[in-house]
């Protein structure tokens, strides 16, 4: 009898010992949550790679405060150089070798799209891709949560401001001939249509174009009083330089992609002054309490970094992830995490208000506008503005749905 009891006890001990292994969630232990991110640390898009380092600094700050429910974040940052083949290799390595629980942010639409299906089919939570593409939230997928305002919404907000607040009557659009540029174009066209107006010109450039004289001439011939540009920083600099030479001086407006005003001011040799742009996050010198706290974290953990929009965007894009970790509690699994993300309503850190829900994966629909001033500084010219774009209609029009 005693022998059976001891055997039974042994079996129970073995089963109980194995239980944590059976129930263990990938990338989550009693003391740790593993998070990965890819981002260009080298190559032509390295300017935006500050996002990934910013997230690292944010997690350092969270760990320094004691972590979340007794767990510290172990962060894996990999340089994908903005090259989708590398992004794929990184995603596979971090998921299958490092066993990360989730991915934070990740710069670039093409790199993100290269791994979107892979992450979703492996039930990997992914929060805050660092681009305003509609691909993240439409159609919604269970484990992916977007918190960057949509390019479609940004363009519509700019058009409404130009027409309703500034009284502009002739709007033109200069864009990169790809998904990024076309989504901005669609948002601008939608907003103008609602106002009973049309673009006076829309001119596209290829990513490798370097002479934009003919593009600028076409824009000038249409005689716009406001031009929205949806291009790379380099093309922004070229078109502003070419326009200045041609004596063409409309009100220029642009997307958050060009919101590192310090850099844009330098590469345009000051021509970026007076440009109005959409911002997804507080301005660099904002007195917002979280901005002051994050700035201190940067000074403590990443003193070598420049305090710029793309660096603290790394904090911003990961804020809802940390909030969801807090809400999910000790029982952190991919499913409890998704439930926690879906429960976020009007959550706001240093970015736009975020609301998710079942089937709702685009959390942000608002931006505010800022104007570039002397020396590459900027001032807010509006509060956060909610987009009124009917996304289903726009996405249908551009063949996305």
């Amino acid at each position: 009898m005693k022998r059976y009891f001891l055997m039974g006890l042994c079996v129970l001990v073995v089963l109980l010992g194995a239980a944590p292994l059976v129930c263990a969630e990938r990338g989550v232990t009693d003391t740790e949550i593993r998070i990965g991110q890819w981002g260009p640390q080298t190559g032509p898009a390295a300017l935006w790679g500050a996002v990934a380092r910013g997230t690292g600094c944010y997690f350092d700050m969270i760990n320094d405060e004691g972590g979340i429910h007794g767990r510290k974040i172990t962060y894996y940052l990999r340089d994908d150089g903005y090259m989708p083949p590398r992004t794929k290799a990184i995603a596979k390595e971090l998921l299958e070798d490092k066993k990360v629980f989730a991915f934070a942010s990740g710069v670039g639409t093409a790199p993100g799209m290269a791994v979107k299906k892979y992450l979703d089919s492996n039930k990997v939570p992914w929060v805050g891709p660092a681009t305003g593409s509609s691909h993240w939230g439409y159609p919604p997928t269970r484990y992916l949560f977007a918190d960057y305002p949509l390019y479609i919404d940004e363009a519509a907000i700019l058009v409404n401001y130009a027409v309703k607040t500034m009284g502009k009557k002739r709007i033109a659009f200069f864009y990169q001939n790809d998904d990024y540029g076309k989504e901005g174009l669609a948002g601008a066209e939608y907003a103008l249509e609602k106002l009973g107006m049309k673009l006076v010109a829309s001119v596209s450039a290829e990513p490798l174009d370097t002479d934009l004289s003919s593009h600028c001439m076409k824009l000038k011939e249409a005689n716009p009083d406001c031009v929205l540009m949806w291009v790379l920083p380099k093309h922004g600099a070229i078109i502003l330089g070419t326009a200045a030479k041609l004596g063409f001086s409309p009100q220029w407006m642009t997307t958050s992609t060009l919101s590192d005003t310090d850099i844009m001011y330098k590469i345009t040799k000051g021509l970026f002054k007076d440009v109005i742009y959409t911002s997804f996050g507080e301005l660099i010198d904002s007195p917002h309490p979280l901005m002051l706290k994050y700035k201190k974290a940067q000074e403590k953990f990443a003193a070598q970094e420049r305090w710029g929009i793309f660096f603290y965007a790394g904090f911003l894009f990961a804020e809802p992830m940390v909030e969801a970790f807090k809400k999910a509690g000790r029982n952190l699994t991919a499913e409890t995490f998704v439930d926690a993300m879906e429960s976020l309503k009007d959550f706001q850190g240093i970015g736009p208000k975020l609301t998710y829900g079942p089937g709702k994966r685009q959390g942000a629909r608002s931006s505010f506008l800022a104007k570039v001033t002397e020396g590459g500084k900027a001032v807010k010219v509006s509060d956060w503005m909610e987009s009124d774009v009917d996304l289903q209609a726009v996405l249908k029009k551009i063949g996305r749905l």
Partner: protein
Amino acid sequence: MNANSSRLKRLSLIMVAGIILFVFGCASAPKDFDPKITGPQLIADPECITLGVANLLGKTITFKGKGFKPGDSVFISLLGVEKGGQKVDLALADAEVDPTGSFVAKVPTLSKVTELLRADMGSNAKMENIVIVSKPPIPAGTYTARAVSMESDLKAETAFGIKDPSAGDAIKDWLGGLAGKIVKK
């Protein structure tokens, strides 16, 4: 006389082939899939490249695969490349697998510049694209290129040759330097 003439002919052919190789680098007829193999396969087109900047940028390099899972996605890595005293794998190209289980993965310009040439892309004062060469390129050699599937365990390999720049490459790069498109630092 006849024997001499045929020996001379053979020698001339070898010399011409040698000159072609010296001036133009490596050349090979495109390989095709082996019909006897039913599993995953990978071929490189071309099978060999030279590391001239202008030559490489103007050349289309593709990796073609078959026998993979339809709807899957793959990336192609060069295995065991020497970098900073370590052996690393370089992801060069990627593709989606079509409904027949095949794919064509083209090596993008950025991968050619940063992974193979180990150079940087930049802009000159006119904001024109230029290639900035400040480090030696990937070491020449015959590498194994591997197609790795994202969703399944399927893999396939092929040989991929990388040779130092030929004399023809050097001339092209010299001209590229004169035009300001290739900057050596």
